[in-house]
């Protein structure tokens, strides 16, 4: 018999209460871990984005076009290395359920600026020479079994071509891979020149520009220079870093980080109250035993340690079960949600956060029982009236 044995036995003294509390802890940590995985999927693009790239779009809205000649004007600014541009195509394959991220890009230098897409050199040259060519991600090639040379019809939900149809025909010219798993490997790129010639309207315009700067310290200056350059033009611009741009796009839907934080705060506050209440009840029920143990020579610190370990066991078991279940769920659904939540995964650092939360919560839940233990008067609790 040692103190840990006593902690273990005491924990399971009221089995029903222990397991119900444990399940509430499990649910809290299941939610926390799952939301953390979703948050990772939404923010991984931000962390993977290039520190040297700026995005310029119309000041009013991303849906407004900018003239293509803005590219040359920005390229002429100091501290600018390269400028490329792109337009959103809004494509799908066969039917609208098979939505694809299709972008028309400047084929001359887009993949120089976005060098994280790994394309074999011969394939890149092949694509640049093929007017209807598309560059597709490895994931997409696997999903639809597409290979180089395949004719692929894609439709746009936005852009009609000069034939009055929304169907565009393409040829697979290159397949890219990405360095990280979190990057979307299911994108499609095609030549902006083909897009511009083929579409029924809005020629010589594009959706946004990507500017690569020479040194990161120039970022603020270049942003200022670009927006000042077009301040009084018909199409004024708004320039941000790529990180800010991606974050803003994500936040248009929902500020996931804030939602997660709010959920986590609400859940943990409730959890703390539940576990605290359990531990307070526990110590109240064992007041006589605690007094006896003090009489036997156990210090208050020792008894408080015991309560802390009981809280730790309760929270640790629940947190482990909740985190493991959430991890299993994410592993299980990763493939099926990859289209809209690419890179959904649990960061190893999340488990450190769980570990820290469990310890802090255990300490917090021991505060009130500790106060009660400290103030037990042995003579009053055990003493006779003689």
């Amino acid at each position: 018999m040692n103190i840990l044995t006593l902690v273990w036995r005491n924990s399971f003294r009221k089995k029903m209460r222990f397991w119900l509390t444990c399940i509430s802890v499990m649910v809290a940590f299941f939610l926390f871990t799952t939301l953390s995985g979703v948050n990772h999927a939404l923010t991984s693009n931000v962390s993977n984005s290039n520190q040297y790239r700026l995005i310029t779009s119309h000041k009013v809205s991303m849906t407004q076009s900018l003239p293509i000649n803005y590219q040359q004007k920005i390229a002429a600014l100091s501290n600018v290395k390269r400028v490329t541009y792109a337009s959103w195509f809004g494509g799908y394959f066969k039917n609208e359920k098979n939505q694809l991220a299709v972008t028309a890009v400047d084929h001359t230098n887009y993949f120089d600026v976005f060098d994280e897409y790994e394309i074999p050199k011969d394939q890149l040259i092949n694509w640049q020479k093929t007017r209807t060519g598309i560059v597709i991600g490895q994931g997409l090639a696997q999903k639809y079994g597409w290979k180089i040379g395949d004719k692929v019809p894609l439709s746009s939900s936005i852009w009609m071509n000069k034939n009055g149809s929304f169907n565009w025909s393409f040829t697979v010219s290159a397949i890219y891979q990405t360095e990280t798993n979190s990057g979307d490997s299911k994108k499609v790129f095609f030549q902006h020149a083909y897009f511009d010639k083929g579409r029924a309207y809005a020629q010589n315009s594009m959706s946004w520009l990507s500017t690569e700067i020479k040194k990161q310290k120039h970022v603020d200056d270049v942003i200022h220079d670009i927006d000042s350059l077009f301040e009084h033009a018909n199409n004024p611009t708004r320039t941000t870093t790529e990180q800010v741009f991606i974050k803003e796009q994500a936040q248009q839907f929902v500020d996931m980080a804030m939602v997660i934080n709010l959920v986590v705060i609400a859940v943990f506050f409730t959890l703390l109250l539940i576990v605290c209440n359990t531990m307070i009840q526990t110590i109240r029920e064992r007041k006589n035993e605690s007094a006896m143990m003090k009489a036997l020579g156990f210090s208050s610190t020792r008894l408080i340690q015991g309560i802390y370990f009981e809280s730790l066991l309760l929270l640790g078991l629940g947190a482990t079960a909740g985190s493991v279940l959430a991890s299993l769920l994410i592993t299980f659904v990763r493939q099926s949600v990859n289209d809209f939540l690419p890179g959904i995964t649990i960061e190893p650092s999340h488990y450190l956060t769980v570990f820290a939360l469990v310890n802090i919560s255990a300490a917090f839940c021991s505060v009130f029982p500790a106060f009660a233990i400290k103030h037990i008067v042995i003579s009053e609790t055990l003493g006779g009236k003689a």
Partner: protein
Amino acid sequence: MKSNNDIILKNINKSYQKGDNTVVVHDNFNLTIKSGEFVALMGPSGLGKSTLLHLIGGLDQPTAGEVIIGEQRIDNLKQANLTQFRAHNIGFVFQSHHLLPVLTAQGNIELPLALTSLNKKERQQHASYALQLVGMIDRANHYPKELSGGQEQRVAIARAIVSDPTILLCDEPTGNLDRKTADEILALLAQLNRDFGKTIVMVTHDNKAANYASRVINLESYVLEQNNCSVGEHL
């Protein structure tokens, strides 16, 4: 502290607040209990018998005066030191046994030994020996709910003596037991006093229980006697 464990209560005052009133329990009380004595403290309720026991055990502090055990004055010890002192020198047996229901008899007896540097095997040996002394070795693996009242009290006595304290403080140890079981427990205490030299201070209302003690102090007459002496001295 093992050689001389005389208990000396010197000029003890003990009072407590009850609303606006101050209730005086002991006023200039003196008592010496020699090492190896078996003392029964008797008297009507409210005279402070249990309070005396708590003062000796360091569970309570006097308002004034000194509590000395052996050569150690304990009334002014810090809580941590007092806790340690108790763990090594004093065993308690209360009217209610307060055994931990989640531990077996053996586990309950091993509990105080968790504070020592003994290893698991040594702890088990000590606990078994204590169980043997109280005649409960065959119930070692029984939980308190599986024991009778007398058996529970025997286990509580074994727990009190397992760390080999020199002093055993018993507060109505047989208060909840029938006559036959009470006699068995009292005989056990007397044996611990006789064979192992334990100093035993027992609070009881039971005259038959007091017969097992080597000295019976009736607190009512003892206090009166003390006061008369004191008045005489002053005259």
